[in-house]
């Protein structure tokens, strides 16, 4: 009798389980893909946001006249940027508790251009996975969080304004090896983290250049750094920004060198929501201002108070001519406000990524200007270049 009861109970349990599983499978509808750019209404503004009413939903934005986001920002009195506070150089908390970094400075530059107040910013801290949904929903005015520009992100997330930093995979070696180019790594042992395209880029680089590199593959980066620091491998490879950030944890940072070669493409820059051309143009222009200020040798410390007689410089600073201030809805002197607040591109780089920051070499790399400041026709070998201000 007891046996029978057990059987029945067992069957009942199985049937219930199956029924639950089956129903669960049928009744859970697939979530609407929020990456669909044609259905922006699927994304909702954050309800707890204090500025909820001021931020137009993407649907509204699309129906409103161009310039609405500029108006919204001016009415609200601050610029909302999605960024981070966990990576030295890009977005980090400094000793005084302030959120600083390359990405944060780009946000401050935008606030200085639009509102003439670099501190009128609100930083929304988001994870890497939240980047797409955040910018798609239009709840922030700009996304600057080490976002690599790719074509599908451009199509699905928002508009990439301008590449402000060329990241890419690089190598770190001990200076005592006397290596000054990744092409010298013939027969070297290189430590690499598993699970990224890093390994594949390393293999391609080794194969293409016949370097016969021996790869030591580790599951996590901490082991890679330990193996590298102890000399088990001669070099380690990762994104250059990561190399620089990880380098700060090495016992003797000065004994190590990041080689100039970059073997993969990771262009980083600010992204704005789809559907507002004027705002898109404003952000692009602010990035141009930063870059051309460095090219024309205008910095926060040598800002001229009156026209200098140099046409390009005077046009940038608003003393003569126009680079489109009126059409963009910006102040005639907006560039001066930007440069006074955050400095030019070179200053921002120096402060966050250069010697005062994580010490990522700039000279002769991709992130140098295309031209020399003193001679705009002399190539400097860099790729930092933007639409001319005129």
């Amino acid at each position, binding site marked *: 009798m007891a046996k029978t009861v057990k059987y029945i109970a067992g*069957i009942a349990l199985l049937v219930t389980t199956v029924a639950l599983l089956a129903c669960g499978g049928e009744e859970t509808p697939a979530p609407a893909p929020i990456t669909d750019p044609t259905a922006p209404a699927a994304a909702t503004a954050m309800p707890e946001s204090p500025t909820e009413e001021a931020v137009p939903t993407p649907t509204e934005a699309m129906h409103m006249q161009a310039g609405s986001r500029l108006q919204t920002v001016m009415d609200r009195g601050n610029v909302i940027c999605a960024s981070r506070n966990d990576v030295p150089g890009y977005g980090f908390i400094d000793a005084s508790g302030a959120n600083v970094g390359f990405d944060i400075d780009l946000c401050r530059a935008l606030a200085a251009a639009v509102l003439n107040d670099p501190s009128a910013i609100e930083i929304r801290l988001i994870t890497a996975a939240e980047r797409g949904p955040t910018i798609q929903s239009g709840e922030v005015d700009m996304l600057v969080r080490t976002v690599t520009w790719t074509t599908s992100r451009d199509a699905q997330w928002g508009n990439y304004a301008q590449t402000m930093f060329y990241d890419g995979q690089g190598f770190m070696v001990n200076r005592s090896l006397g290596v000054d180019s990744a092409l010298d790594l013939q027969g070297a*042992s290189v430590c690499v983290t*598993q699970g990224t395209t890093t390994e594949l880029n390393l293999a391609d680089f080794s194969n293409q250049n016949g370097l016969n590199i021996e790869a030591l593959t580790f599951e996590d980066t901490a082991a890679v750094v330990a193996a590298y620091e102890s000399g088990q491998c001669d070099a380690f490879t990762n994104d250059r920004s990561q190399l620089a950030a990880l380098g700060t944890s090495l016992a003797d940072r000065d004994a190590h060198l990041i080689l100039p070669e970059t073997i993969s493409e990771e262009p980083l820059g600010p992204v704005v929501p789809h559907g507002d051309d004027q705002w898109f143009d404003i952000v692009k222009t602010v990035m141009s201002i930063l870059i051309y200020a460095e090219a024309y040798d205008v910095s926060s410390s040598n800002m001229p108070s009156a026209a200098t007689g140099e046409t390009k410089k005077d046009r940038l600073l608003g003393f003569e001519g126009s680079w489109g201030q009126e059409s963009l809805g910006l102040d005639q002197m907006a560039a001066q406000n930007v440069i006074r607040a955050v400095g030019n591109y070179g200053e921002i780089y120096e402060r966050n990524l250069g010697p005062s920051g994580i010490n990522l070499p700039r000279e002769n790399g991709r992130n140098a200007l295309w031209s020399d400041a003193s001679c705009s026709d002399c190539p400097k070998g860099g790729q930092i270049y933007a639409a001319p201000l005129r």
Partner: protein
Amino acid sequence: MAAILQNLTYQGIPIWRHDQVIQWTAQVVSGFLVVFLVAWFFFNIVGAVDEREIPYGFSFLERAYQTPIGQHFLPYETSDTFLYAFGVAAVNTIVVSIVGVILATLLGIFVGVCRLSGNWLVAKVALFYVEFFRNVPLLIQLYFWFYIVLALPPVREGYAIANRVYINNAGVSMPFPFPDGAAAALFWIALAAAGIIAGAVVQRSLAQREITTGQPSYPLIGGFATAIVVGAVAWVVISLVAGAPLVVSQPGPQGAFGRIAGGFTVSGGLMALLMGLIMYTSSFIAEIVRAGIQSVGRGQIEASRALGLSPMDTLRQVTFPQALRVIVPPLISQFLNLTKNSSLAGAIGFADLTNVAKTMTQTAPAISIFILIMAAYLAMSLTYSLIGNLYNRRIRIA
């Protein structure tokens, strides 16, 4: 059918309360449910794979893998195919598994016997060893050995013993004989293997003679001598005909970075992996051995002592053969555990099957790769089980 129905009604109870009917129904229903569940899971996966256009299939196996592999025991070039690279990685795991199993078993037996030692200190040290190594997670132990290895000097400042053996944190390199001409080497290896078999036969027949006649026949010496003589004669003959079958390769620093090339290298990752796996597994084996020895009746030991056998002989001739029957089945599952635990190698940079296969998933369909990994581990485990079961059948009491 009619007979069954008649049989059921004969007992005069309603059919739905009939014990046999209920049991049969339960069997059939649960059988259907199992089939339904398996089919449901299977079609769900197939459906999801189709819907999301997840790539699968095995055509990638013929493509060049193009990614370097750390240490490998088979020759490997980045232009080799995925299939071959997978084989190279599998051989890495097999080598770790075989070396690990042999050393862990020897160490485990030693510690297990020490656990039962009359010497208080020896017994307590063995107890501490067992409790420490089996209670600390294996991954932590691997990291521990990894950092110990890293503490060795780097390759350019490493130890060079007589310019023959190099010790540094990238590994230990030593001279090693490698086949020169493939045909000659294979021929010699075949003959040497035949010599070993002949040696085993000689050893066995001498042992049989010793037992039956009581004459001292030195079976071990005879066996080894036979094997060595056969191997040496074959070596000399092949050397005269076709040149030396094996050539000793000497390690030495090479290239701008002074990496040690040539000879045979046990890489730092492999050292740490083997240390971790052997220590961890041997602590479990020690307990299995102890339990096996203790399962042998006290009377057996007392009887052999009364016959005048030394404690060592008692262990070798009386206790251990009987303990083996208890030890072997759980020992096999420790072998399987060691093999499967070697998949943690990726944490410390040894290119085992799992580590390489996970890298492969970036350029090949992950589903296919994981099916291959599962099949490979399953094949290894089943082979161990088969060998173990055959051995177990041989030593059991008929």
